[in-house]
């Protein structure tokens, strides 16, 4: 083997000097701009990046991307979205500030497969055709019948079958295991802004390399092709509805290309200095962040309210004592005690609210749940780095 100072590797095909790095927290493999310090993982926000050897640690797929969806959200929008997020989190930890979020913002491209294929298939399905039936509503009043004709749409189901020979272009297939969760958390990307990849796209941003090879992603691609084929067959049969679609398909002329999708990541620390991720769709600015309340902050509020309750209580007690001498004071004392009690009870609310956010914030909606799953399951957040 020849010793070569200007070692050529597969990363050269990406057209730019890039560093291969891996994260032992989220198992992500990245190509990073060479001047970027190998500290914080652009995908999980942990300090767990290590340089990898391009010859030894070969990722599942190394070909450069063909297409890319550029970052299109403006700086102003980014700042607004981050500020909104920080503002709307109850009892936000001190670290969760728009400034921090902005300072830690990192652009990263996520991979997606686009597959072209020829399909030859036989198919069968039940096609539904709408038809209208006439019915009547009648009313009898003052000795007269009045009739109203009503039309109702019903569906007639008929069996159909056939053959299909179609070419499908640019069908999306997941290049990351967590693709479905990402889509739930960030919404879908609109592919009409797509353009060819240029090497200088990676001067600023990191690229997440696929962790699912095409062969693996093909099952999903097949499913989505089946859905498209079903819809096309429905159109072919001029039906209004379709159900029970089944096909036996052979595919050839498969062509896989990699598409890069833009994502911003940032993070903040909670009271216990744990990292919480905030993701922003780089195309439309859809923001999804883990919400974490600061128990410290909530406790401060609770103490504040609690102590005011104590103050009111003490004053009321004094009034009650005075009441021994002047009866007019007694109602005031009673009112004071009631208010003290009410305020005392509200003191629990900040604690409850913070606890609620930390305990149930993940279940707020599907997207929030997906994000929780992404950050907790997919990359084992909170695990201590191995010594």
């Amino acid at each position, binding site marked *: 083997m020849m010793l070569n100072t200007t070692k050529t590797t597969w990363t050269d095909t990406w057209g730019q000097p890039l560093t291969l790095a891996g994260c032992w927290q989220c198992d992500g493999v990245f190509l990073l701009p060479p001047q970027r310090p190998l500290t914080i993982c652009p995908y999980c926000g942990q300090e767990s990046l290590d340089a990898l050897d391009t010859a030894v640690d070969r990722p599942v797929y190394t070909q450069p991307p063909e297409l890319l969806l550029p970052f299109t959200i403006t700086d102003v929008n980014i700042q607004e979205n981050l500020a909104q997020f920080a503002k709307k989190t109850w009892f936000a930890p001190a670290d969760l500030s728009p400034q921090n979020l902005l300072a830690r913002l990192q652009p990263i491209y996520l991979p997606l497969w686009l597959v072209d294929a020829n399909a030859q298939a036989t198919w069968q399905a039940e096609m539904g055709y709408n038809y209208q039936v006439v*019915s009547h509503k*009648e009313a009898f009043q003052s000795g007269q019948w009045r009739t109203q004709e009503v*039309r109702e749409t019903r569906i007639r189901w*008929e069996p159909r079958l*056939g053959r*299909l020979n179609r070419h499908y272009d640019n069908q999306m297939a997941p290049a990351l295991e967590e693709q479905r969760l990402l889509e739930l958390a960030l919404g879908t990307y609109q592919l009409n802004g797509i353009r060819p990849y240029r090497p200088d796209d990676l001067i600023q941003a990191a690229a997440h390399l696929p962790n699912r090879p095409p062969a693996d992603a093909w099952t999903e691609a097949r499913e989505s092709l089946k859905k498209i084929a079903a819809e096309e067959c429905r159109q072919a049969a001029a039906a209004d509805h379709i159900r029970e679609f089944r096909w036996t398909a052979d595919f050839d002329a498969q062509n896989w290309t990699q598409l890069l999708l833009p994502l911003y990541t940032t993070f903040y620390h909670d009271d216990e200095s744990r990292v919480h991720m905030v993701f922003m769709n780089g195309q439309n600015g859809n923001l999804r962040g883990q919400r974490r309340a600061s128990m410290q902050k909530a406790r401060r509020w609770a103490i504040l309210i609690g102590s005011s309750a104590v103050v009111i209580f003490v004053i009321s007690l004094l009034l009650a004592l005075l009441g021994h001498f002047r009866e007019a004071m007694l109602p005031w004392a009673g009112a004071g005690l009631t208010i003290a009690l009410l305020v005392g009870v509200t003191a629990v609310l900040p604690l409850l609210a913070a606890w609620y956010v930390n305990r149930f914030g993940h279940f707020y909606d599907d997207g929030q749940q997906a994000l929780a799953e992404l950050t907790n399951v997919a990359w084992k957040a909170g695990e201590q780095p191995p010594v």
Partner: protein
Amino acid sequence: MMTFPPDNYVLTESAVSGIEVYMPRPPKEMQQEVVEFHCPQCDATTAYSAENGGLTCTHCGHYEAPVQEVVGKAAVEFEFTVETIERAAHGWGIERKELSCNRCGVHTTIATDMLTHTCPFCGSNQVVQVKAPQDVLRPRFLVPFKTTEDNCRQITANWLQNSWMLPKDLQKLARTAEFTPIYIPFWTFDAHASAYWRAEVAHTKQKTVWSGGRRTTKTVTEWRWESGNVEQFHDDLLVNGSNQISKVLLRQMRGYDLQELVPYDASYLAGMQAQAYDIGLEEAWELGRDAMRQRTKAACRTQATSQRMRNFSMSLDFSKETWRYILLPLYLATYAYGNERFQVMINGQSGKIAGQRPVDWRKVIGVTAVSMLPAILLGLLSLYLSNNVATADVGVPVGFVAVLALIGALVFIIRAVQTALQMDDA
């Protein structure tokens, strides 16, 4: 892999290139337009026989067993689709239809609403299966003839002698009457009716009132609002589909049992006359719905706690409406008596008879006159007895009996004349 396409599928249109669409082979159109019936043995004309339910040869008596399959009330019902209603409105198209007899080659034209034809020259029976405006609009089911022509003569003979008001020589006619078997078109309708009604219902009440310083009771009517719901299923309501048959007679002779419905087959029509509907689906459904409305309304009114009510109103929603187009068997006969012609109808299934009968009015007048006699005689007797001092006491009760006899006679006369009028102009 299975062979493609399966046998029973045919290629149909596709709106997308690269996709072929196959659909189930549509059921065959009514095979031949005209079906003729000949004996396989002697080539003479065969006809449907009500006696044994098959085809029999008029010449050698050869018998062909029927395609018996009774579906009864389970016979398919159709929905009121907009398409069917529109197609049904188009009617039968051309007025008359050219027909050439396969046997003797003679050309005749028949009206398009005739479903059968007997060649006037060679007597062969033909069933014309004219293309209906939509496949569902051809007769799909029928009740076959069960009553034979001989039965009809017997039934008519009995019917013509079961009343004293009829002329004695009438029953002879029954033996010579010609009965024409004919299938009449009918629509059957099903619908579910859900109704809500509301009315002010009268309740009488005893009330104590003070009037002129005295306590008295008075009956007063109180009107109370009542309401209710009625859910009713109207099953197989029959509506006549032909304008050419006397509706009055048809109503008297009704009572078809739809449990005996069979799928339409041309052989049932061999040698019979048969008409297609000329009262269309929509018009018939209008009539059917009216009958259903009246029935449901009656059901609503019976729910009220008293039958005296005012401001009755109701709403009624129909759902699950379906229809069927069927043929029902009927014998038609006309006979002449004196200078007049009389029409008789016999239900081809049950043998129930309806028709006009010539009333012997002299007989009726004679009998009614005789029925007055006892009253007149008793009256005279009473007068005579009252005039005589010795028997005056008996005169009064006899007079009373005379009045009773008079009332009885009058009742008898009124009823007799009523029956006679009914028989005469049914």
